[in-house]
């Protein structure tokens, strides 16, 4: 409701609206009754018709409850016996019935408080009066007093009273009857003017009806009515002017003239009001329609209206745009014709289904492809339909068409990208899992976010800890419980350890559990998180140890070899001269014994030098081919004879070794190697216990590792000869040096420290190697790897061992 410039008096605003209605109703009723009584006297005929019109107007303006109240009032008057005859109540009742019917069809729409509504009320009242006139004509017949009996004049007078009343209401309560600020000609039609004009009209009507003043009165009355009509509507005013002119011409009988004049004025007023209302309505409709069209045309979605048969009755430009033609070309087409072949049955079925739906209205969505030309577009159709409750009103189906081609394409692209991302993520995950390193990513808040399969495996993390969101400190606490940081570490120490491992660039190999070595490094990421990388260095360190050991042995060999050769040169004169001296003097003398000891010492020195040279030499492989198994048995049998009886020496040979397995080696060397190893074992056991020699076959000796003579070659079949003792064993440091010449753990004077070095040198010359496995207190196992000859180079069956290269 637009704001009115009119300011309400404070007095009225304090009264509730319902009180206002009562006041208006009662006041209007009393004034109308008084006026009628003045005109026709108490109990006059006009009273009832006036009341009827009044009831009708009230009912129209305020609704059915008021109408009922008005009817009750009519009935009361009737019972009071003031009415001329029972039939006089008919107009009121008829008016009531008509009003009730109108209200019924209008479904009690909210009353529109404007001039149009009032004019409509007038129209309704006129109809009621016509009905009353017809009824009175039927009861009393047509006669000279017909007009009087028809009670046009009082009815019209009452009708006229509506206008001053409306003006009064407007003046008092603009919310109830707001006035259009201007009529369409710009005529001032504010509440003050309206009230003034209406009051003038009312006064004129009252004067005209109260006193017979002559023939000029109807003209005055007509002018008054004209003014009143003008206040509301120009067309109505013109009609009133015409009626006034007509009335002025009659001019004979006052009563007739007044009645006719008033009736005509009322007709004109009503017609004018009605026409104005219609015009207003049409304007409004046209305006709405224009707005609707503009809206339709600017809608970014296609809108198509269908009739009951599914034919297009309306289409906006966007709909044509989507389909690919002018919107006008769509009109009259069956809607389903727009779809692709696949979509048509769906569309037709949807239209049919809507036709049979019970719900008065609904919305739902289907999506399918439209094919305007060659490129199908993907659209979504929102169906809206309204089924009027009145059967005659046709079904209205509205289809809202949204072009979702671009959206679908974007959606598909998004899905593709998601898919690609997932693939990349998978690839990353697979790559991470394939890495030898343990990788774990932590958030800036030090919680685990990503990790590869090696990470928990390297740290022995249980699955509850290898989980998204695990705090780093929890992982370190767990590692502390494993003993990774030593025994009895405090929380502070764990944290310090964590900070050191994670945040300092650290290239140290950290001794870890189970003899492993790990290297930790942390890389900071842009978001403040970090990636923790763990490298298992155990194998690298082992290989490095082996390589270092090899280099050490080589250097030692060169050194020892140089020293040994010089010693040989030096031993020469000692031998020569001591023997010469011995030959020059008598045996048994002191000098003879001296020379003899010198010779013995020189021999001892010679043995040592030979051992050193055996360790150090790098001779080509022997050209002897030896059956390995019999050679082992012979060697063990020979060794056994030299062992103290407290030591048992057992031999076990794996069945996997073929009896004819051959190795390119000198069996005397094999004997020496085994002798040295068994002697070493016997020394380690303090000459009591059990020594086992186990031979295992079906093995491959991989080159490039350890001390194989030819690194980089192919893996060869080999036999492993393990000499296992139950002696005191040795620690890691001892193991590292065990094959160095002159390295011994034995007491001074026991052993030269050359036995294992010699064995080492011999086995290396074979192309094999010796491994040591030992722990303090748990005995030692020396494993000699002997590479075997390929089967095709074996000598024919029945030939003795090797030693005949010329025959092949």
């Amino acid at each position, binding site marked *: 409701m637009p704001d009115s410039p009119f300011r309400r008096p404070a007095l009225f605003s304090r009264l509730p609206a319902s009180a206002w209605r009562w006041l208006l109703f009662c006041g209007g009723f009393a004034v109308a009754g008084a006026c009628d009584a003045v005109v026709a006297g108490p109990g006059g005929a006009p009273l009832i018709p006036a009341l009827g019109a009044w009831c009708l107007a009230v009912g129209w303006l305020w609704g059915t409850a008021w109408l009922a109240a008005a009817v009750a009032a009519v009935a009361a008057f009737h019972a009071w016996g003031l009415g001329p005859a029972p039939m006089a109540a008919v107009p009121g009742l008829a008016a009531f019935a008509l009003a009730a019917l109108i209200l019924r069809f209008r479904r009690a729409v909210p009353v529109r408080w404007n001039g149009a509504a009032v004019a409509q009320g007038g129209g309704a009242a006129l109809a009621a009066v016509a009905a009353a006139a017809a009824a009175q004509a039927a009861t009393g017949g047509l006669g000279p007093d017909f007009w009087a009996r028809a009670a046009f004049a009082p009815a019209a007078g009452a009708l006229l009273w509506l206008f001053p009343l409306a003006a009064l209401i407007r003046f008092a309560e603009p919310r109830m009857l707001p006035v259009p600020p201007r009529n369409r000609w710009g005529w001032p039609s504010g509440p003050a003017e309206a009230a003034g004009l209406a009051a003038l009209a009312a006064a004129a009507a009252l004067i005209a009806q109260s006193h017979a003043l002559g023939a000029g009165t109807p003209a005055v009355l007509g002018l008054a009515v004209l003014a009143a009509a003008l206040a509301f509507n120009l067309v109505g005013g013109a009609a009133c002017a015409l009626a006034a002119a007509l009335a002025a011409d009659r001019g004979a009988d006052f009563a007739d003239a007044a009645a006719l004049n008033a009736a005509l004025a009322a007709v004109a007023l009503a017609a004018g009001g009605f026409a104005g209302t219609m015009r207003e309505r049409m304007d409004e409709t046209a305006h709405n329609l224009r707005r609707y069209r503009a809206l339709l045309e600017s809608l970014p979605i296609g809108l198509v209206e269908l009739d009951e048969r599914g034919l297009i009755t309306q289409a906006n430009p966007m709909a044509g745009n989507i389909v690919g033609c002018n919107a006008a070309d769509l009109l009259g087409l069956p809607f389903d014709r727009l779809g692709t072949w696949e979509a048509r049955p769906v569309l037709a079925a949807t239209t049919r289904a809507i036709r049979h739906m019970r719900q008065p209205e609904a919305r739902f969505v289907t999506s399918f492809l439209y094919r305007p030309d060659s490129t199908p577009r993907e659209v979504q159709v929102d169906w809206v339909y309204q089924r009027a409750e009145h059967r005659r009103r046709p079904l209205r189906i509205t289809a809202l068409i949204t072009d979702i081609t671009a959206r679908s394409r974007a959606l598909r692209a998004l899905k593709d990208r998601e898919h690609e991302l997932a693939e990349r993520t998978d690839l990353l995950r697979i790559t991470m899992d394939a890495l030898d390193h343990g990788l774990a990513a932590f958030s800036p808040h030090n919680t685990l976010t990503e990790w590869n399969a090696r990470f928990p495996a390297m740290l022995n993390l249980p699955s509850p800890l290898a989980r998204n969101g695990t705090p780093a400190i929890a992982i370190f606490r767990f590692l502390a419980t494993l003993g990774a940081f030593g025994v009895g570490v405090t929380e502070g120490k764990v944290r310090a350890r964590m900070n050191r491992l994670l945040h300092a660039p650290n290239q140290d190999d950290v001794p870890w559990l189970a003899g492993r070595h790990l290297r930790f490094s942390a890389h900071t990421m842009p978001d403040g998180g970090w990636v923790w990388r763990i490298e298992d260095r155990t194998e690298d360190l082992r290989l490095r140890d082996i390589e270092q050991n090899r280099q050490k042995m080589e250097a030692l060999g060169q050194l020892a*070899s140089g020293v040994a*050769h*010089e010693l*040989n*040169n*030096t*031993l*020469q*004169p*000692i*031998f*020569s*001269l001591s*023997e*010469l001296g011995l*030959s*020059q003097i008598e045996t048994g003398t002191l000098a003879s014994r001296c020379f003899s000891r010198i010779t013995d010492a*020189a021999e001892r020195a*010679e043995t040592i030098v*030979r051992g050193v*040279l*055996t360790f150090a*030499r790098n*001779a*080509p492989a022997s050209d002897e081919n030896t059956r390995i198994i019999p050679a082992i048995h012979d060697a063990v049998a020979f060794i056994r004879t030299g062992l103290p009886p407290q030591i048992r020496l057992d031999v076990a040979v794996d069945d996997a070794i073929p009896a004819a397995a051959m190795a390119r080696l*000198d069996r005397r060397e094999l004997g020496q190697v085994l002798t040295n190893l068994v002697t070493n074992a016997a020394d380690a056991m303090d000459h009591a216990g059990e020594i086992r020699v186990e031979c295992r076959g079906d093995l491959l000796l991989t080159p490039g590792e350890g001390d194989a003579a030819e690194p980089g070659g192919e893996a060869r079949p080999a036999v492993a000869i393990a000499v296992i003792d139950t002696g005191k064993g040795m620690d890691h440091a001892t193991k590292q040096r065990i094959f160095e010449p002159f390295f011994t753990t034995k007491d001074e004077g026991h052993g030269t420290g050359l036995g294992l070095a010699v064995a080492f040198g011999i086995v290396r010359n074979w192309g094999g190697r010796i491994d040591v496995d030992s722990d303090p207190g748990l005995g030692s196992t020396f494993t000699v790897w002997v590479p075997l000859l390929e089967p095709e180079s074996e000598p024919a069956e029945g030939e003795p061992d090797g030693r005949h290269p010329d025959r092949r």
Partner: protein
Amino acid sequence: MADILIVDDNQLACEAIALVLEAAGHQVRQAHRVAEATEAVAAACPQLAIVDLSMPDGNGVDLIRTLHQSHPKLPIILYSGYFAPEDDSEKRANQMDGIVAVFKKPLRNADLLAAIDRALG
């Protein structure tokens, strides 16, 4: 009693062997370098030469080859401290022309004298 040339850069060893041979009645000349050995042979051809492999100014093998070319009948005994035990370089040396025996240091007097006796026939 023969004229024997000992070629050895190790003077101690050389003198010791010379003493042993002189005790056995041989006439012994000593050379400590290849050049000295060549001079000695040029002055008078010995009946036997005992040659060490390594020399400060040359290789014993080359010396033996030269000696054999100039004096094909000269028996030569090769000895060296650089033969490793069971080393086949010893065997290879054995197959060189003019060599009658190969020893590795330290060698025993009896073995040397026996080889000399065999060589001088």
